[in-house]
């Protein structure tokens, strides 16, 4: 083993974390290399010096501050809560259902396609025709009741003649 390769083996050797085969290889190098041997000893000394630094204790308020921050965190919903729709979605769906019900409850205008072109007839609800409402008014309009009766003639009227043409 060269001094260059020792770079990656020196700390694991100091820590005692090398495989047996690697350890033998490193020890063979150290036996022949005073510079690396010195460095290993000095790394061990440095490691010992690092042990001299004392630990500090977290302040007495540390736990309380962490708990306060945890308590201030928004409550996490259960997994099934993620499948619940949002209020907006519920409102939109309700509006859609109501609109559907309203539309379906309106009177249906039927279109009868009973044959070819020109034979289309529409079934019209009399209540929807304002002209028929006017008919009721006209039928009960007193001045009109006083009009003389129309003269009966044998001749077909103009409308009949038109229809017959």
């Amino acid at each position, binding site marked *: 083993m060269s001094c260059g390769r020792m770079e990656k083996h020196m700390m694991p050797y100091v820590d005692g974390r090398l495989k047996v085969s690697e350890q033998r290889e490193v020890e063979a190098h150290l036996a022949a290399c005073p510079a690396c041997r010195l460095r290993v000893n000095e790394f061990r000394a440095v490691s010992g010096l690092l042990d001299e630094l004392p630990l500090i204790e977290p302040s007495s308020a540390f736990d309380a501050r*962490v708990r306060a921050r945890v308590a201030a965190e928004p409550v996490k919903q259960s997994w099934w809560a993620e499948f619940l729709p949002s209020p907006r979605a519920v409102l939109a769906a309700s509006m859609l259902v109501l609109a559907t019900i309203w539309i379906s409850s309106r009177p249906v205008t039927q279109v009868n396609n009973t044959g070819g072109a020109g034979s289309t007839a529409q079934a019209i609800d009399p209540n929807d025709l304002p002209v028929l409402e006017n008919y009721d008014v006209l039928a009960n309009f007193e001045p009109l009741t006083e009009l003389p009766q129309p003269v009966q003639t044998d001749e077909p009227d103009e409308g009949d003649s038109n229809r017959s043409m």
Partner: protein
Amino acid sequence: MLDVKAGDEQSFALLLQRYRSPLVNFLYRMVRNREQAEDLAQEVFIRVYRARAEYVPSAKFTTWLFRIATNLALNSIRDTRHQRMEISLDTPVTADAEEGAERTLDVADKHPDIEQHLVEEVRKAMIRRAIDKLPEKQRAAVLLHKYQELDYGEIAKILSCSESALKSLLFRAYEALRVELAPLVAGTK
């Protein structure tokens, strides 16, 4: 952590109790400011709490915890780099600086072992200064390796590097410490 994930608040309290001291010490040695270290440690716990639902035990909990802590510390150091003052060799040596007290050593102290006490404090100050001088990633590697006793694989995951790169990183860090602490190293041989 799996109990915390299941919503057991008591388990979170146990995590807090178990890891608060290692975390605060690691962060304190990284950022060299006690108040900042505690703020960062709080942030680590909050992030753990927030992420509890997504936690997957693919790695050791400590690896995950210290990865969060290391990233926060490195970001904090970068953010406050312009505010940090280099420790001058002319700065008076302060006693109990580790505890945050800025009490300057008084040679006229009536402490019977004042000389011994002074020597110890100077040693500690030198060691702290040597660690502070390390580049951030080397410092994190040394602290995780020395004080958290994590194995190389875990530290490599925390620092997002290969095990081989970590061993080189540690070698360079210990080499720098060896040079910086040469007067103390010579005294230990």
